[in-house]
């Protein structure tokens, strides 16, 4: 195995086109290294992109937030720009593994590994994440939803590098959050996780809803039927009735017959209600 240290995106895509499926990108390495050490993966080359400065930034571009692929989970959890504009993402990043993992694990790694239990992905989905993928032959943009084609199998081509993720920040009279359930309160993978973004009109009618889930067997995804069940709902006494949306969410997000799916069906409605309550309380002038 070779270790190829690259310093720029141009060098990275050169190496990627040279190694193709034989090359493996190394960022934080929290997935790649354990797989290598267990003998599950034996690429001919590790392409270490961790030193590329151009992939480290968080910035405002136009109305959007641009997050470089190498931004670490710790930074997502603690950066004030993220906490303010993308609270669900900050909350999700803060519950991935331990501090030791968050120090090095990157948002780009989460996206490209596309694990079904990846906490950050529902939060990225409710921000309508758009990915910029680059290769030697050019660049393309794709929504995260499209990119997540199957578990561990994404639309990423072997010669492509994820460069940045563009996010739509929270608008006026909007709030969002992320909740997960794992087997212990820290360190564990999500058995099920939900992200919700909610917008409300001045007359307290729900105008926009985005719900995304992780856990289970599919890659994280939005749940349009549950979203539709909430749009147009009137808040009564500062409360949002999530009964119908919760039932939709449970049946659409955990349709399998397995016991694990049955568990997820049971907890999903409660998670959605708790999140909705938190969101409504966070939209000023509505919860009171």
């Amino acid at each position: 195995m070779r270790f190829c240290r690259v310093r720029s995106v141009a060098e990275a895509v050169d190496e990627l086109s040279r190694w193709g499926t034989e090359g493996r990108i190394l960022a934080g390495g929290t997935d790649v290294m354990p797989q290598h050490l267990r003998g599950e993966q034996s690429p001919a080359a590790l392409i270490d992109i961790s030193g590329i400065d151009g992939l480290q930034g968080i910035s405002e571009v136009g109305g959007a937030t641009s997050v470089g692929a190498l931004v670490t989970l710790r930074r997502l959890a603690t950066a004030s720009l993220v906490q303010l504009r993308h609270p669900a993402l900050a909350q999700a990043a803060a519950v991935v593994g331990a501090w030791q993992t968050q120090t090095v694990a990157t948002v780009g790694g989460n996206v490209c590994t596309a694990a079904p239990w990846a906490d950050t992905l529902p939060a990225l989905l409710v921000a309508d994440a758009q990915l910029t993928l680059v290769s030697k032959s050019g660049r393309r943009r794709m929504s995260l939803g499209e990119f997540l084609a199957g578990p561990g199998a994404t639309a990423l081509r072997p010669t492509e590098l994820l460069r940045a993720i563009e996010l739509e920040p929270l608008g006026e009279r909007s709030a969002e959050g992320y909740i997960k359930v794992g087997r212990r309160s820290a360190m564990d993978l999500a058995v099920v996780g939900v992200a919700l973004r909610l917008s409300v009109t001045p007359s307290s009618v729900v105008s926009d809803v985005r719900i995304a889930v992780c856990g289970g067997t599919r890659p994280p995804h939005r749940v349009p039927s549950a979203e539709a069940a909430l749009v147009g709902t009137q808040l009564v006494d500062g409360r949002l009735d999530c009964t119908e949306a919760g039932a939709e969410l449970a049946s659409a997000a955990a349709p399998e017959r397995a016991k694990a799916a049955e568990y997820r069906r049971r907890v999903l409605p409660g998670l959605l209600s708790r999140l909705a309550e938190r969101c409504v309380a966070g939209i000023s002038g509505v919860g009171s």
Partner: protein
Amino acid sequence: MPGAAGEQSVSIRLIVNERRHQLDVGAGETLLSMLRERLSLLGPKEACCEGECGACTVLMDGAPVASCILAAGSTNGRTVLTVEGLAGTGELTALQQAFVSHAAVQCGYCTPGVLMVLTALLEDTPDPSEADVRRALAGTICRCTGYQQIVEAALDAAQLMIRAATS
């Protein structure tokens, strides 16, 4: 020496415990085996080798990392601190001293990792709450103490450090 057969090596320069090193490490070699086997720093412990237990925790550029799953090759240009580097001047740090007085060490296997993550916490959050301390410890497993003495030692060390800084 670490580094499996068929692995090419890569040259790195880094600072470990305030000393500069230039080393050739294997492509798949971990920071932990580099520290233990090339630099004879046996403080960081090898336990799960999966990034789950925290026994191997060291600080990289001031932040805790599980050295057992970190590629040595990617530490080029970085600054690493192991438990050996804490008492660099020969005197125990306030945190280490508090571990001694609170009997926060039993078998000691987790201690080097726990000390490193708590050192980072006290740097980051000089006056942590008990919840802050417990959250910071989520990735370092201790099978002996039940954590209580460790938490008390950390809170005590924080107060000592605050007093020392303001006096």
